[in-house]
């Protein structure tokens, strides 16, 4: 591989059995340094009444005032992705997938993923943002000459053991509710890829309503690419079920519980978190629903109550006459080909604890933390709406226009000595020596 473009030039190299190495010099930086030295030598710099010489920023030239053309700012993360690309600020970072499948995959079918997964009866409640990331166009940053990576080319379908289990449970629950007149809207809130698998398992019986309101990002706080990869894997299932499913099928809102992943503002991650959207009580009633069943999985560490962004909505539903209940998936199991609920019960025993459908099944033993759940108002980070820095990304602007994401290691502002950066990223510490006394502390020789 050769690259005639500088400015780095190699001046030393060794390639021997004992050692291989090389040294390069940045000729561009050296030339800038020489130019600054020449200007100082001929006394071209004088600032203010006292005539104090000021050295300007490299690459910016000699300025009278020590300021940078680059300014720190903050923008809505999703807006930046829609404007400048899904991988804004991390164009060279690859997506990492945690599962794999050996089944044949045709990337071309991703072009219809959004359409295949779009609901019919519950379309007004559908949030297609994540699915649209595959086909949405975006423009480039000025001076950005890097190759644009199209998201569909980066995506690969995944399959994990947890997804397989969720798919099975989705089928169980879907069959349990199908045609029973429970008048319940289901909400599944697992890790994104598992929620998708659950919805795929239930797709013949319940219409999935997707609620992922973000785009994936290579260093995103929310690993939405896994959710998308799961959707890609189950796309044929969703497409087929959409045709076969009865028009009157009940709804299943599909959420990613990683949407509120813990995040401390830092230079390494992209804040693609988002809040879930739930229909209002009036909308639910108008659609024929009397109740909501919130589905999580306690064995994965979920607490026996809703995620913080749902608390206010669930409390409001309850107060306006829509019953809100919760269930953990770990109370369902399959043994000897038979589906069960709790200990000592059949799958029908579910209706003994959630009496929306009459049953003669025996009462099962289950953890009452879930069966006793009702939404209670509690203080959360979202009690007064979305926090100010939620879903935001630090950007660098120049002349009022976005020049890039501050987490971009190759951004031109990094060579600007006057750029101050975001206060969150630049914890200024007193200059200090770190590390060891190295080889310079002792004599050494060949």
């Amino acid at each position: 591989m050769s690259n005639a473009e500088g400015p780095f030039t190699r001046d030393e190299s060794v390639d021997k059995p004992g050692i291989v190495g090389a040294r390069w010099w940045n000729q561009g930086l050296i030339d800038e340094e020489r130019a600054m030295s020449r200007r100082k030598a001929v006394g071209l710099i004088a600032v203010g009444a006292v005539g104090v010489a000021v050295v300007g920023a490299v690459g910016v030239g000699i300025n009278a005032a020590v300021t940078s053309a680059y300014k720190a700012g903050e923008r809505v993360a999703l807006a930046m992705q829609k404007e400048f690309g899904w991988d804004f600020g991390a164009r060279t970072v690859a997506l990492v997938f945690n599962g794999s499948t050996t089944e044949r995959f045709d990337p071309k079918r991703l072009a219809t993923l959004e359409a295949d997964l779009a609901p019919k009866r519950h379309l007004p409640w559908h949030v297609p943002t994540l699915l649209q990331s595959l086909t949405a166009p975006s423009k480039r940053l000025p001076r950005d000459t890097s190759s644009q990576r199209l998201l569909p080319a980066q995506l690969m379908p995944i399959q994990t053991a947890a997804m397989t289990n969720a798919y099975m449970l989705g089928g169980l629950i879907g069959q349990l509710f199908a045609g029973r007149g429970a008048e319940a809207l289901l909400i599944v809130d697992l890790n994104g890829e598992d929620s998708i698998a659950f919805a795929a398992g239930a797709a013949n019986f319940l219409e999935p309503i997707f609620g992922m309101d973000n785009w994936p990002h290579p260093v995103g706080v929310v690993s939405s690419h896994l959710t998308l990869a799961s959707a890609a894997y189950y796309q044929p299932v969703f497409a087929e079920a959409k045709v076969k499913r009865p028009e009157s099928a009940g709804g299943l809102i599909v959420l990613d519980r990683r949407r509120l992943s813990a995040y401390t503002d830092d230079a390494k991650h992209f804040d693609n978190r988002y809040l879930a959207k739930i229909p209002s009580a009036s909308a639910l009633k108008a659609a024929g629903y009397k109740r909501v069943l919130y589905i999580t999985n306690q064995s994965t560490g979920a607490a026996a109550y809703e995620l913080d962004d749902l608390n206010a909505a669930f409390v409001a539903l309850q107060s306006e006459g829509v019953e809100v209940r919760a269930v953990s998936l770990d109370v369902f199991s399959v043994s000897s080909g038979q589906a069960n609920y709790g200990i000592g019960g059949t799958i029908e025993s579910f209706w003994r604890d959630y009496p929306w459908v009459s049953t003669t099944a025996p009462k099962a033993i289950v953890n009452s933390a879930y069966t006793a759940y009702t939404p209670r108002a509690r203080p959360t980070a979202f009690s007064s709406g979305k926090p100010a820095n939620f879903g935001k990304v630090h950007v660098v602007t120049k002349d009022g226009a976005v020049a890039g994401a501050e987490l971009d290691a190759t951004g031109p502002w990094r060579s600007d000595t006057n750029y101050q950066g975001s206060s969150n990223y630049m914890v200024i510490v007193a200059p200090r020596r770190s590390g060891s006394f190295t080889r310079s502390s002792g004599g050494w020789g060949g």
Partner: protein
Amino acid sequence: MNHSIFALELCLCPPAGNPLAMQLGELVRRHPATTTPGAKWEMYRAARQLLANNLGYAVSGCWDFFDSDAKSLADYDMWTKGMTTEEGSRRSPRPDASANNMYRQQSEAAYITCTMSFLLQNGSFAERQLNNQCNIPDDRLWTRATFAHLLDKLGLLSFAVVKSDVFYVIPGDDRWALTADDMRDPKFEYLRPIVG
């Protein structure tokens, strides 16, 4: 221009057949004589990834960040001499390496070292960010987690503020990997045992 310096050296003892030394050496051999800051960043990203993936085999190392101009220039010259004088490398193949024995015995440990040093533009945004990341408490200076942290945070460095970089690997040929006896030489005393 004032200078800062960041340097890191790792000594690893991977198992027989591990291609780490060859892979690191190839990064240098294939990197062009003239190149761009972006390509430089990619080369070091690959190096960092290789080292991070093999950090479990690291036995000793050292690292520095200095922001004194004179110290930075002097130390950078010292790190360069470590390569040009071939001070740390063997003068002959390992005793257990021969034409009929391309692979060392399982019981014979083989050590490799990887050294990288960067002469930086003091006061630049990227340099200050790296300085910040090197603020490691004294009781954690030589932990494996610290080396993992530094390898990771080196990704924040823009090569637009790197005035010079030197990168070298011992050995260039697996048969010249360092032995345990070699590592006991006083010239390697500056390498600190890695803990954790």
